[in-house]
């Protein structure tokens, strides 16, 4: 039996990060300033783009469009990615991974548990802040049903997890090359520019199937789309896409890790 895959230890890792993060609640709150500025800029931008609140752009009315951006930005700001990017790359390059590997847990799952512990404090804080800003400057989301909101929760969690696993895969490149940061930068910009600022429907029809094939669809678009415009058909479609994406990303992560640790170079002394 693979004892190192038992869920209890990852729950404890998660809990330990939550305990640590709680000590930083004040500094997390400082991040609200830049978040609020960005949200304010986008509210003004879309207010300018829409001539009337009832107008539809790519099937979204003004409130839906602004809430869409606020949801994706909340996920972006609420999920600090250093644990699965810089820290992992640093662990590999600096050899610290060797010491972590010696413990009876799987290093990748350890990182994921730490990452989850980090965002589970930060994301609700940013979500509350976005909710306040949205209600004050845009008003409540029309036709939002609590059931749809509840149904979207696992999609949001799955999206965040897919994002983390993909970032971990990119960090694993550090086993082979000196620096994985340029690849992380490309991936981040893909998500930020293509995923968080506009819904997929805003792209030209010819490009949309391509965008749907990228992580943007499962990480940003899926969760935000289901909250602003829920439909059962879309829900099942996004869940299926997430399941496939998550399965493939996890398989790639374990494969890269398995290959990478055999190449591990750790300074002696």
């Amino acid at each position, binding site marked *: 039996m693979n004892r190192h895959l038992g869920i209890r230890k990852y729950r404890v890792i998660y809990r330990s990060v939550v305990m640590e993060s709680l000590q930083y609640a004040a500094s997390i709150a400082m991040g609200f300033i830049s978040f609020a500025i960005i949200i304010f800029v986008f509210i003004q931008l879309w207010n300018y783009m829409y001539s009337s609140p009832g107008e539809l752009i790519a099937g979204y009315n003004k409130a839906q469009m602004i809430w869409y951006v606020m949801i994706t930005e909340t996920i972006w700001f609420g999920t600090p990615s250093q644990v699965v990017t810089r820290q992992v790359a640093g662990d590999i390059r600096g050899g610290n991974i060797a010491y972590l*590997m010696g413990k009876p847990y799987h290093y990748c799952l350890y990182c994921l548990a730490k990452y989850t512990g980090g965002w589970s404090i930060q994301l609700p804080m940013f979500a509350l802040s976005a909710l306040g800003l949205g209600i004050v400057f845009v008003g409540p989301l029309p036709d939002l049903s609590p059931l749809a909101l509840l149904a979207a929760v696992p999609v949001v969690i799955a999206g965040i997890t897919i994002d983390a696993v993909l970032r971990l895969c990119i960090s694993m490149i550090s086993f082979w090359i000196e620096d994985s940061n340029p690849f992380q930068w490309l991936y981040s910009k893909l998500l930020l520019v293509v995923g968080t600022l506009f819904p997929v429907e805003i792209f030209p029809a010819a490009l949309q199937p391509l965008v749907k094939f990228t992580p943007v669809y499962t990480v940003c678009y899926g969760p935000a789309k289901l909250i602003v415009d829920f439909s059962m058909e879309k829900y099942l479609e996004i869940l299926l896409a997430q399941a496939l994406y998550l399965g493939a990303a996890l398989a790639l992560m374990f494969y890269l890790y398995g290959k990478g640790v055999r190449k591990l170079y750790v300074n002696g002394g």
Partner: protein
Amino acid sequence: MNVIEAENLAKTFRVRQKEKGMKGSLQAILRPRIKEVQAVDGISFSVEAGEMLAFIGPNGAGKSTTIKMLTGILYPDGGRANVLGIDPAKQRKRLAYEIGTVFGQKEQLWTHLTPYDNFRFFGAIYDSPDRETESRIRELADTFELGSFLNTPVRNLSLGQRIRCEIVASLIHRPKVLFLDEPTIGLDPVVKENIRALIKQMNRELGTTIFLTSHDVGDIEKLCRRIIIVNSGRIVLDDSMDHLKHHYLNRKIVEAKLGEETALPAAEGITLLKQKGSQVRFQVDTGRLPINEALHLIDAENLEDINISNIPLETIITDIYKAEGREEKAV
């Protein structure tokens, strides 16, 4: 019964080389030059259950690489290792439950949590039931005298307190073998003594096998009964501490203060180390010249003070390192 066995264990690292300057940087991209470094070169040894072994050598000798292969962190390129009947390269996770590791230069504790929360954390990581972890924490907190800072965040502890906590964290799951890689680095002499006493007590009471690497001769001398010296990836000495001292302590250092400045007569087995005014310091090879005969070389009437001491273990070890270095060059 052997708990650690290494047989022709070898590890080679491929290190990228770069010429100096911009031209070298470009060359390194287009035509990378790789140099192979033999970190561990076919070493064989075994360690018995309950033994306290010092595994030492100069920087870059292959000590830590060997530990990393024995704990499953690095895959050997050649030979085989066996720890508690487990092949570390093939069953690293299974082995992790049976061994503990303390790397003096690497923290394993979560600095924002208290030692108590850390120990609970490590108990869970090693699948130890909560009740057992609790009783283990009480037992180890008592042994290692952690009571006064058990609930203080690790980041606020002194280095000595932190190292004690690091060792306790490694013992929560009752490991049979403990690998200590420079556990007393950076500690003051009093704390070092304290840590050594605790390690000794742990070995005595729990029967834990200790595999120690350290540059601190005090650690080696006070803790270990056996010593393995490695240099350039090879074992250059594997001996008991008593035997080592017996073999190498046939040299005495004599420091004498004379009434009047007098030259020391030349004799076989005597090496003058220093003479300044009426103070003289010389080494006696007692294998060639018995100490009583050496002392006859000094005029007793002229002698004001005398001190005879053994060669420090540190000097012996340094000589062994250097001798090996010379042999390497000769080859």
